[in-house]
């Protein structure tokens, strides 16, 4: 019975993240448009985009390889598995012991490596520029992420997200190191999701593209899968911030319908708040030059390292 319930929670979570991801994207676009005093596309526009893309034919470059055609699915799968392991509305995920936070970060790393590789597959200069810059960002964002994991793991005594969430629910306290980690995680999330000030998801100027430049050669169903993976990644990072830093409301302990309902409602509220704050930040800042980004990400790395050092000095920080 418990096993069935756990599996059900896991299944619901996997489908829920998939279903909600485009909505979060639509929400951020809508809010952004409203903040810029535009009408903006409807909330459901990302779903329509995905549907439309999946119905179109794929135009494949003549020299595209098997990697180019299979990578979108692998990128999607790695991102989806990672997203399925972050507690959203309940902690008792059946497979949460499969992979901890370090593994989740590494799964996203796998997706990134595939994306960077396909950027170079057709052999265009835009693809190369995107891949090259993406890997440079990643070379700072990944260690920053590991440092954030260190901070959280040293406080909670675990790298498993479910345990971290439960620990944070039970020991709610303000800590300097957690504050540093939160700032660092937000910076990493901005960079990983190709948001302003690191990258512009709505750019039409090729030379400033990073993420968009890598997927420039994709079309049709392949592009739909990649876009969905990108939306999933945004949802994952918002869920991650929610689960680690604002774990209140997540159903833990004895499962009951009321707890799940509360978890679901608070999760939606967290997504909305996260999306709103993201967009509010984005509209208030300009995009950086590419070579300012390493300093921005380096700050995240240093904050994470500082937090870890503080915790090595004393567990009370």
């Amino acid at each position, binding site marked *: 019975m418990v096993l069935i319930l756990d599996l059900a929670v896991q299944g619901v979570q996997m489908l829920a993240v998939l279903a909600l991801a485009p909505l979060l994207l639509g929400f951020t676009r809508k809010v952004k448009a409203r903040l810029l005093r535009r009408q903006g596309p409807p909330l459901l526009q990302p779903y329509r985009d995905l549907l439309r893309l999946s119905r179109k034919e794929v*135009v494949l470059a003549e020299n595209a390889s098997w990697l180019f055609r299979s990578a979108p699915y692998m990128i999607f799968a790695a991102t989806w598995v990672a997203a399925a392991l972050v507690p959203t509305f309940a902690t008792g995920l059946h497979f949460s012991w499969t992979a901890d936070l370090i593994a989740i970060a590494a799964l996203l790393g796998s997706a990134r490596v595939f994306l960077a*590789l396909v950027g170079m597959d057709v052999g265009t200069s835009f693809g190369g520029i995107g891949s090259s810059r993406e890997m440079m960002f990643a070379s*700072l964002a990944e260690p920053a992420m590991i440092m954030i994991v260190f901070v959280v793991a040293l406080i909670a005594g675990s790298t498993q997200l479910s345990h971290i969430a439960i620990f944070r629910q039970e020991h709610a306290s303000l800590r300097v190191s957690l504050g540093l980690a939160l700032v660092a995680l937000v910076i990493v999330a901005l960079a990983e999701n190709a948001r302003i000030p690191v990258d512009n998801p709505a750019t039409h100027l090729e030379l400033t593209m990073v993420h968009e430049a890598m997927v420039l050669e994709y079309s049709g169903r392949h592009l739909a899968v990649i876009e969905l993976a990108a939306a999933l990644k945004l949802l994952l990072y918002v869920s991650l911030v929610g689960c680690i830093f604002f774990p209140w409301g997540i159903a833990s302990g004895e499962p009951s319908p009321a707890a799940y309902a509360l978890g679901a409602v608070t999760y939606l509220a967290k997504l909305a708040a996260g999306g709103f704050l993201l967009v509010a930040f984005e509209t208030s800042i300009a995009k950086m030059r590419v070579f300012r980004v390493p300093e921005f990400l380096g700050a995240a790395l240093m904050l994470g390292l500082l937090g870890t050092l503080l915790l090595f000095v004393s567990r009370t920080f």
Partner: protein
Amino acid sequence: MAVSATLAAIAVLLGTAALAIAVHRRPSATALIYGICLAVSLLLLALAGTSLLGRQPAQHLTLPIGLPWLGARFRIDALTAFFQIVINLGAAAASLYALGYGRHEEAPGRVLPFYPVFLAGMNLVLVADDAFTFLVAWEFMSLSSWALVLAHHHDRENARAGYIYILMASFGTFALLLAFGLLAGPSGQYAFGDIRGMTHAGWLEGLVLVLALVGAGSKAGLVPLHVWLPLAHPAAPSHVSALMSGVMTKVAIYGFIRIVFDLLGPPSWWWSLPVLGLASATAVLGVLYALMQRDLKRLLAYSTVENVGIVFIGLGLALAFMANNMAGPAALAFTAALFHAFNHSLFKSLMFFGAGAVLTATGARDIEKLGGLILRMPQTAFVFLGGVLAISALPPLNGFVSEWLMFQAVLLSPDLPQWGLKLSVPAVGAMLALAAALSAACFVRAFGIAFLGRPRTPEAAEAAEVDTASRASMFVLLALCLIAGVLPGLLIDAIAPTVAGQIGQSMPAQSTIPGWSIVPIAESRSSYNGLLVFIFITVSTLVAIQFIHRFASDALRRAPAWDCGFPNSDPATQYTADSFAQPVRRVFGENVLMARDTVDMPPPGDPRPARLTVTVRDPIWEVAYAPLSSFISYAAEQLNHLQFLTIRRYLSLVFAALIILLLGVAIWS
């Protein structure tokens, strides 16, 4: 029994070398020699496997050769058996690969005799149980690999590589000689069993640690003693490069473990500081150098430097924990180090084989002369991609597991009482993460430029897939990478006796945990299940493909690349290796590697082409080696006069030397 069988197998290898001298001119010699080497390596692998998995106690054998009062002592314990597995697995894979690759060798007479000797030398180092045998075997290994580096001696660069290699190898052996001299004490007890029973003074232990770091570290490629490695490893034929990079560095790591963990006695906490410092510098510098290389094999060699750094980080952490009687964390760190050593031997051999296949197919090692090989060599590209994922520490392959274990060990280190360690271990963790991320960038670059995109030269456009033996060898290694990544618990349990032998405790048994998870400390703390991650990813990929092909359009049209509407068919318009590395060069390289980009832009009207020159220098070479080398040349020049003296002056010199020595003896006593 196991010892004598191992020694017999080593003797067969030496016999094979003699046979190779006799038959190397025949066309069938390559298949014969590599076939024998393959069989003997598999036999040695099976012997070591039974002794490690069967948890057999240490076995001894003394032969009446070597030093008259000592004999040649041999011993196989769990540590030896583990490294024998690493070495003979790599040797078997390399021999299989060479069955195909070796046929392209221009001068088989320069490779065939030395190859079995090299294998024999490495195996002999592992079974040696006294300092004399160890050093002889070590020199044997160095000299035979030096001969292999010089196999293509007409190339000036190879000659230089061989020269620097022999210098560094002699220097390393010299340091080890001194280390063993100090360990043996004034009574000259060179047997390892006697050394283990002795206690040494504190300063002496520190000195031995430094000498072991210098001696074994120079062979393994620790910064700043790494300079020979990226020159020598790529110079040899590719299967030998794989052995040197993937396997011989492990022998050096074995030497370090044997001396510092086994012979030197219980560690002091400060021992870990130089080890961790050098190791993290090695990891980051190694991968940064690798990112700047255009020569595929040299890039792989620099990446070896990085991975050796990662292994030494694990060893340093293990020393720190051991000194504080934290046996559990020490076992975790030590297991992580051994696991990474094993992993590295798999994927580095795989990638050197891939580089060799590319070299055979195109004749080029410079990745700027390649491109688009994924279409011409799909199988090699597939296995190389697997190696890229494994070495970049991405799940579900094996590289991730060892780095994950390493991070878990770092997370246990706040309990260390010493402030020096408390403040340095987080930085080590950050360096480890940085090295992992940079290594992903490095290998995306290598694979992307060499295998993806459009062919940059006619040779690359006409490349053809390599022979079956080479491909089989690469596929076997990739399968092992996957197995080690998916079922790490089996490997952790297999090396438990090795860990227990050095640390006194091993990690908790993993095979009893349901579902093939690995749980280093407690399930509430951390767990990882490679098998489930692998199944998850596979199932999700298949579900996504099924779903898309069911509900989405199946239409597909081939067309010229889009490239924002301005596709240019010239392959020179692609991103190059240097341009790919430019952002990283600018962020990290300007200070660390003194990387400079100079642009020479002619004024309008001048028909000269514009030029962008990239210079990357090795600061360690310029700071440490170049002054030393010029001093030695200067000293040699000055001392040259001594060669042209008259007999009268020689006699007076000898007389003066005698007087000084006698005076010295008189004052001493």
